[in-house]
C-alpha cells in the first residue's frame, strides 16, 4: 500500500508566495484532485508532488508499506503527464519510450512498447519523428511515457488538453482503471474530470 501525504506545504517563488499551508493524506486506491484558477499554482503543486520542485517549507512524503520512500528513488514509481513535459524531437515515438526505459534501467520486451503504442493509438506512426507529431499525438505519446514504467502513482496535469474525443475517452478509462489500484493525482479545471476525485485540494482562497 502506498501512502502519499503532505504537511503544511509552502512554496515561495522569486520572493512571492505561490501557496501556503497545503496538507493532504491519501493512500491507495484513491484519487486526489487539485483545482484552482489559472496561476493559483496547480502545476507547481503537482510538480512538487512529483519531486520535480523543492518545497520552501513543509514536506511531502511517500510511504510504501510503512517505509518512507527516498526522494531519489521516487522517479521509478511515478508517471507524470504535463503540458510542460517535452519529449525528444529528434527521436521517433518508439525510440523515445525505449531510450527513457534504458536510462531508467527498466528496459522491457519490444512487444510491451508496441502494445502501449497500440493502446494510445500511435502504432501506425511509431517510426515517425516526434517533431512530426500533431499536438494531440504528442499528448498521446506523453501518456504512453507516463504509463511506460508501470507506475504506482500517476500525476496528471491537465490530462485532457489537446486530445480529441477518442483521446479523452481513452484517458478517462486509463484514469478510472488506475484509480482502482493506485494513487491518481489530477490537476485540472475541466469539470468533466471532477467525478473521479475522492479528495480535493482547492487552491483558490
Amino acid at each position, binding site marked *: 500500500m502506498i501512502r502519499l501525504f503532505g504537511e503544511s506545504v509552502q512554496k*515561495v*517563488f*522569486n*520572493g512571492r508566495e505561490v501557496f501556503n499551508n497545503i496538507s493532504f493524506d491519501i493512500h491507495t486506491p484513491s484519487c486526489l484532485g487539485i483545482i484552482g484558477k489559472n496561476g493559483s499554482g496547480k502545476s507547481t503543486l503537482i510538480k512538487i508532488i512529483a519531486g520535480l520542485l*523543492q518545497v*520552501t517549507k513543509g514536506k511531502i512524503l511517500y510511504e510504501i508499506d510503512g517505509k518512507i520512500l527516498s526522494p531519489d528513488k521516487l522517479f521509478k514509481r511515478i508517471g507524470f503527464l504535463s503540458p510542460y513535459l517535452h519529449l525528444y524531437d529528434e527521436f521517433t515515438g518508439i525510440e523515445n519510450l525505449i531510450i527513457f526505459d534504458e536510462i531508467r534501467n527498466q528496459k522491457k520486451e519490444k512487444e510491451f512498447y508496441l502494445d502501449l503504442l497500440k493502446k494510445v493509438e500511435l502504432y501506425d506512426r511509431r517510426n515517425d519523428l516526434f517533431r512530426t507529431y500533431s499536438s494531440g499525438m504528442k499528448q498521446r505519446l506523453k501518456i504512453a511515457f507516463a504509463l511506460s514504467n508501470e507506475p504506482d502513482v500517476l500525476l496528471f496535469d491537465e490530462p485532457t488538453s489537446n486530445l480529441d474525443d477518442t483521446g479523452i475517452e481513452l484517458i478517462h478509462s486509463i484514469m478510472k482503471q488506475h484509480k482502482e489500484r493506485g494513487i491518481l493525482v489530477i490537476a485540472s479545471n475541466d469539470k468533466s474530470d471532477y467525478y473521479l476525485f475522492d479528495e480535493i485540494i482547492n487552491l483558490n482562497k
Partner: protein
Amino acid sequence: MKLKYFIGILFVLVILLSFIPKISGNLTDVKFYSTIDTTKIIPVKGVISEISNNLYKFIDKDGNEGKLYASNITNKEGIFYLKYNEYENHFTLKKFEKNTFFITFPFIPGLEEKARIILFHVPVAWVSVLAFLISMFYGIRYLKSENYEFDVKSVNSASLGFLFCILATVTGSIWARFNWGSFWNWDPRETSIFILLLIYAAYFALRSAIEVEEKKAKLSAVYSIIAFVTVPFFIFILPRITSGLHPGSADDLSSPGGGPVIKSGMSFEMRIIFFLSLIAFTLLYFWIFTLKNRVTELERKKI
C-alpha cells in the same frame, strides 16, 4: 557603538607606527653592502663613544662594535648613515639624524623604505581571502538551509572581499612599480590575485544573469565553492613550481619552502605592528560586514 572608535584608534596607531620608525640596519649590513655597491649609504642606529680625535667606537642596535671615522659629531646617539672602508677596516659617517623613537625597522636589502608596504598590503590581502572564505561559508549554509539571510551575508562578504582584493592588487602593483620597475609583471602571485579577481567578477556576472532570487543564491553559492576549490592550485602550487619575483616564491632563498607571508627580515617590533595592522583590518572588515548586512535587511523590510 564603541567598536567604531576602537577601530579608529587602532588605525591611527598602526599608521603612526608604520611611518614614524626609521629604517636601521646594523654594521654587518654595511660591511655586506660595501662588497656589492660601493656608493650605497646605509642607516644604522647606534651609540658612539670617542676613542681619539675624529675616531669613535660605534655600537649598533644589535650590539656589533666597529670603528667610526667622523668629524664634528655633537650627538652621541641616533641614526648614522654609514659606508665601510674595507682596507682600513673602519666606517665613515656620511649623514646623521637624531632619532629618539625606540622602534626601528630592519634594513632589508632591496626593500629598505619600501618594506613598509607589508604592513598594509599583506593584511589587506589576508582580509580579502578571509572575506571570500566567509562568503563561501555562508554560501554553504545557504545551500543547506535555503535561508535568504545567508545568501545576503554571502554576497556582502564577497563584495567586501572583492573590494579588499582590488586594494591588495593596487598596493601590490604600486610597490611593484618601484621595486620591480613596472606595475604588472605576471609574477605567479600577481597571476593568482588576478585569477581571484576574475573568479569573483564572474561570480557577480553570474548573479546578475539570473532573475529568480532562489536560483541566483543557489547557483552563485555553487559557483563560489567550485571556484574556491581550484584556488589552492594557484595560491600554493603555481607560485612554487614556477619561479617568481614575489617574496615567498620557489627561488626566494630567504624563505625556504615559500608561502604568501614574508617571514624573513621582519624584526620583533615590526612583527608586532604587522599583527596590529592585521587585527585592525580584520576588525574593519567585520564592522563593515555587519553594517552592510543591516543595511540590506532594512532595505528589504522597506520593500
